[in-house]
């Protein structure tokens, strides 16, 4: 029996706001693209595991109830499943795919995502992000938006660490610098300056408009298989999953003891690194999906890359952006890529594969062999940390 998980096929559509590009347009393009990229036949796909397309109930029904293998004519498909962990849904897709592979139920699994938010009224999107991950009794009646909730955490983070607004703003400048070099980002070719961030409209203190998420449309797909099968396929490099750890904290932020997730980042990364037989210093790239700048700082503190409270200064020193010695989040995070609902984590994994393959273009990290990726769902209810490498161990 062939075990482990490797990502052998990827496809993505550029992130943008375009209601003319339908959910199914995106879905078909990325599914066929990922299967072709993997170099296999469509009928070799044994299962389709999808992240829940948040806030899009009709698409949710299509994906949950089997339309994808039917429309694509996947004659070898034995199983379908949908997962919902908000932004971390794709992490659950990978974990479930690995279980099917490990127990011999599947050789190849297709993981497709699509999100269109540009045809949803803005007030409905605000409502969704304010009510789905937050509390309708204890938070929502007080006008708490998702940005407001993250503003509350960020303010406390800055209070405890002494990080300045300018230091925090450098995170977004660096993320946008990566994004400006990424043809799949909504901000491709659009870098911004520190002044652009600091002078943008105040949304929920201390978060300014450029530090908040831009809701957009996008999609991606991955084809995954076992380590052994991946080794036998193609001449290129694959992203081998070497270890994983997850820590759950809480559904709602105001009850969260580990408010900046440092403990969760530390423990989940230590689990993943231990399984991989690697150390955090062995990582060539850190991909952090937190969607708000403080997470890019506290993750470094939790990983043990820097001391507690120094994450913002590491970003401010320019070490995490292009040309830095500690490259982080070449995917740009949701602030740099555009927030594509449950697909942000998909974009993170696809970018990780590109980096390991050496296909990240102007964002390519030299000799990128080992990558640590952390995703989170809901209001950062959890940290899901995975170590990928260019070789199976």
């Amino acid at each position: 029996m062939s075990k482990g998980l490797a990502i052998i096929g990827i496809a993505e559509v550029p992130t943008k706001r375009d209601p003319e590009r339908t959910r199914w347009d995106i879905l078909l393009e990325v599914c066929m693209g990922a299967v072709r990229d993997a170099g296999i036949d469509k009928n070799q796909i044994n299962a389709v595991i999808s992240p829940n397309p948040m806030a899009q109930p009709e698409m949710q029904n299509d994906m949950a109830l089997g339309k994808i293998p039917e429309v694509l004519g996947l004659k070898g498909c034995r199983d379908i499943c949908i997962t919902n962990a908000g932004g971390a849904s794709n992490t659950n897709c990978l974990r479930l795919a690995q279980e099917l592979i490990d127990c011999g139920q599947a050789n190849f699994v297709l993981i497709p995502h699509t999100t269109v938010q540009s045809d949803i009224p803005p007030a409905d999107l605000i409502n969704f992000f304010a009510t789905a991950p937050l509390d309708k009794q204890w938070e929502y009646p007080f006008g708490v938006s998702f940005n407001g909730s993250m503003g509350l955490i960020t303010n406390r983070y800055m209070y405890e660490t002494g990080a300045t607004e300018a230091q925090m703003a450098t995170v977004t400048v660096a993320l946008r610098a990566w994004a400006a070099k990424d043809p799949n980002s909504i901000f491709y070719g659009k870098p911004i300056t520190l002044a652009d961030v600091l002078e943008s409209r105040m949304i929920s203190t201390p978060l300014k408009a450029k530090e908040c998420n831009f809701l957009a449309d996008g999609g991606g797909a991955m084809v995954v298989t076992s380590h052994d099968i991946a080794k036998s396929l193609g001449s290129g490099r694959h992203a081998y999953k070497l270890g994983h750890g997850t820590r759950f904290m809480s559904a709602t932020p105001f009850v969260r003891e580990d408010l900046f997730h440092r403990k969760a980042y530390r423990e989940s990364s230590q689990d993943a690194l231990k399984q991989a037989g690697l150390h955090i210093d062995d990582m060539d790239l850190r991909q952090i999906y937190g969607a708000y700048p403080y997470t890019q700082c506290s993750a470094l503190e939790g990983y043990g890359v820097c001391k507690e409270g120094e994450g913002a200064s590491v970003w401010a020193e320019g070490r995490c952006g292009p040309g830095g010695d500690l490259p982080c989040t070449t995917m740009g995070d949701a602030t740099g890529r555009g927030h594509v609902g449950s697909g942000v984590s998909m974009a993170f994994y696809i970018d990780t594969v590109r980096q390991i393959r050496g296909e990240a273009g102007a964002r390519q990290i030299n000799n990128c062999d080992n990558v640590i990726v952390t995703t989170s769902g809901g209001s950062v209810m959890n940290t899901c940390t995975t170590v990928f490498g260019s070789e199976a161990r």
Partner: protein
Amino acid sequence: MNDYIKPLPVIQPHSVEFWEGTKQGKLLIQSCNDCHAPMTYPRKFCSECWSTNLGWRESSGKGTVYSFSVTYEGVEPIFHDDLPIILAWIDLPEGVRMTTNIINCDPDKVQIGMNVEVVFKPVTDEVTLHYFQPST
């Protein structure tokens, strides 16, 4: 008072007493009579020991600001008249943290650690919300 259009709390059977309390000008904190754990919000079972032997005690209503965020935009239109909204997490001496708004306060004057006290505002005949304001 019945033209209130903003979202009302989705009240559950085990939180009815809390909302009855706010109508009477009382901030009630639920805690476990068996293990004495305070509940961060009312529950059917104690989240520590799963006991159903839960009770209520009245908070002094005096707390401190653990964090805050002044919202200037990005809320649904039904909240637009309230902008800017001072969102706050208040730590109460009874050992719980609450999400609320600070009212009667200049948004530029809010600080973490600031002393605040509860103030009740009836918004409908059925619901009175608990806000906080700088301590007098």
